[in-house]
């Protein structure tokens, strides 16, 4: 057990946890856009800033990738922290002025109209889609491309990633909801990645339930599952 304080309150955590998760578990409100407990912390959005005192040094730092350490003290609402959050929100709002979650944050922190030329990119480059695809799904269909202001997330050739199984994990996890999925009886399309796959019908009820390619992939990575399992939809299994 590691003991430390958050805003003066003593908290306990397991070795290997990060400060953000422990704070959230204890009911502290720290805004965050690139952190999910199922994924490796990445530290890209820079929104989860707090001030941490370790020994005699206090510094502003992101909490999602800060490992819990015995005796540190975390401040989540100092003047510096709020100033930093507001600036980060202003920068995000200028990039993505139409994204609801950013607009809500701007409202909550009284960030007015950005002082910069507005962009119209709904992707904030949090990298959650890239991580869920690589760490959880295991197919690495998308990655970061380019650097600096030209950075993007997408398939290697910017369209139709050959390993994408159209599982929709990225669609689900994207905080700005900018990855859309379209589906009909015959095919499923992950719009942002330009990936369309034909659907398979359930052997029992005849309903189309998942892309063929995806079921093949599951068949390959799972063992000991009875033959024919992937031929039926979840309801008929």
């Amino acid at each position, binding site marked *: 057990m590691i003991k430390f304080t958050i805003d003066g309150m003593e908290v306990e955590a397991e070795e290997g946890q990060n400060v953000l998760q422990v704070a959230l578990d204890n009911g502290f409100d720290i805004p965050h856009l690139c952190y999910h407990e199922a994924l490796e912390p990445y530290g890209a959005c820079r*929104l989860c800033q707090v001030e941490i005192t370790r020994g005699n040094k206090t510094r502003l730092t992101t909490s999602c990738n*800060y490992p819990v350490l015995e005796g540190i003290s975390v401040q989540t609402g100092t003047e510096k922290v709020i100033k930093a959050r507001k600036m980060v929100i202003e*920068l*995000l709002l200028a990039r993505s002025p139409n994204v609801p979650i950013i607009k809500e944050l701007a409202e909550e922190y009284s960030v007015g109209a950005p002082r910069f030329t507005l962009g119209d990119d709904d992707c904030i*480059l949090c990298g959650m889609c890239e991580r869920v695809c690589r760490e959880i799904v295991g197919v690495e269909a998308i990655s970061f491309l380019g650097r600096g202001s030209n950075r993007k997330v997408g398939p290697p050739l910017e369209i139709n990633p050959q390993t994408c199984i159209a599982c929709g994990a990225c669609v689900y996890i994207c905080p700005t909801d900018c990855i859309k999925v379209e589906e009909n009886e015959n095919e499923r399309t992950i719009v942002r990645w330009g990936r369309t796959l034909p659907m398979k019908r359930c052997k029992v009820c005849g309903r189309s339930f998942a892309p063929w390619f995806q079921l093949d992939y599951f068949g390959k990575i799972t063992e000991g599952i009875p033959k024919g399992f992937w031929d039926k939809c979840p309801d008929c299994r």
Partner: protein
Amino acid sequence: MKSINSPQELQKIREEIVGRRNPEKPCIAITSGTSARAYGSEKVIETLRAELEKQGLTEKIDIRVTGGQGFDEREPLVIIYPQDILYQRVKPEDIAEIISETLLRNKIIDRLLYTDPKTGEKIVHKNNIPFYKMQTPLIFGNNSNIDPTSIEDYLAIGGYSSLAKVLTEFTPEQVIDIIKKSGLRGRGGGGFPTGIKWESCRAAHGDKHYVICNADEGDPGAYMDRGLLEGNPHSILEGMMIGAYAIGSDEGYVYVRHEYPLASENVELSIEQLRECGLLGEGILGTGLNFDIKVSGGGGAFVCGESTALMASLEGKAGEPRAKHIHTVESGLWDKPTDLNNVETWANVPLIINKGADWYRDIGTEKSKGTKIFSLVGKVNNTGLVEVPMGMTINDIVYEIGGGVPNGRELKAVQTGGPSGGAIPASLMDIPVDYDKLKEVGSMMGSGGMIVMDDKTCMVDIARYFMNFLKDESCGKCTTCREGTRRMYEVLDAITQGEGKEGDIELLEELSWIVAEGSLCALGQTAPNPVLSTIRYFRDEYEAHIKGKHCPAGVCKALITYSIDEEACTGCGACKKACPVEAIMGEKKELHKIDPDKCIRCGACIAVCNFDAVKVV
């Protein structure tokens, strides 16, 4: 080379090599590093070889092809030993004359000598040239004494004797103590004490420890690491071997940027030579040291030189920094304890071992010991690599070694620390250059770039220029760094376009704060330096742009007008002919005029006017 199995054998081989050589035998050294090659050094060497052959002199005169010797402005250099005569900007056509006159008749060829621009005097000997005279070339100096592709040359100047000394006389802990005591600090930018880094890395738990040499050198205009790798690769490898022994590592990497093919080639060749004679591998010099080194190509981005990005890149991942709440000395390459040092840092190690920590501590300032190699570029007469003791003033570097500002212009500022360093104004040129002093004045040591700017430089434009570089080179991970540098660039660009607004300086300061405080790696954390330092020292210039819509240096095109001075104009018409947009009117022998609406401010008229009649305001 046959295998060398003990320190005694190493010493014996060294004596044999030295014994075979005759220091009185004439030798022509030619520089042929990347800069010299750009000026055609390879052709010069080819001609020299052919000419010696033709005259039957191959046995009588040695040729030594060296790496760069710093004086890039004058490449390729030919130095004739034992007299130490330096010829500069030598062309293939000069070779026959050099052989017949200087080598055979001992006559100096005036035309090839260096002329001191201050005195107009021709200088014969290399070490009398002011550029060299004021330097303390402890690290870089050996470039002139060796052919980097010859391990024999390196052994002849005492190479690998420091390694032998360490292996026979000291425990790893004692080596760390020597490095700690020497006061050596990292030359890659941060200035972290090397001995302490080694100590923490040695102490870190793990079955495997790595040592890495950072030769990414992404800082535009800085090329001291290239100079060392090309010109004296064994000194860096020897440093790494000593480090490996001290830290307890059996595997090392040299991470060289893609754009340095010659450096890679020379390091690879040196490693091959070492493996062949058993100086790399198992049981080095008959002791318990096992160590091997691999060379790896850099990812090609500036940010790949950052420690964690470099390690990610070595692992085959995207070269992107990660948080360092757990230090790389504990968990670095493949999560193993890793010591990363810069090329120049490694090159200092054999010297310190050889001469002792006390000797080394005597050079430099209280907290910055030893020498530093700077790459002196920009508006300065002698550009090149210069090695000086820490604590030399910028004044001495720019005026004594660099020969001052060309064309009689005035010095305005010196940017140290590369793109994310700061501009230091002319009024502070007498500060001693060391890690702490540079930081104090709002700049940093960085890897040792030194860009001289004259009074024709607009400081807002300079800040814009560096911010443009940084916004493109940010890896783009952090919102603060990616969006922040881009917005800073936009604000600066608007100011230079005459669209600056009241409050822009404050906005730049606010952005600087969040980029520096809120970003993950040192690229973001230092990116605001060029903006903050120019605001600090040249605020009036920002205000002139914003409020007065005027660029005092006459650089920002949107903020200047060209006109012709009535008194000076002779009506020769040269400007009228040169103007690409027909903005100049006037009859022959009469006063000419520029139409400000048509003028595109290209400067063509200024360039051709012989009477200094075109004015920019």
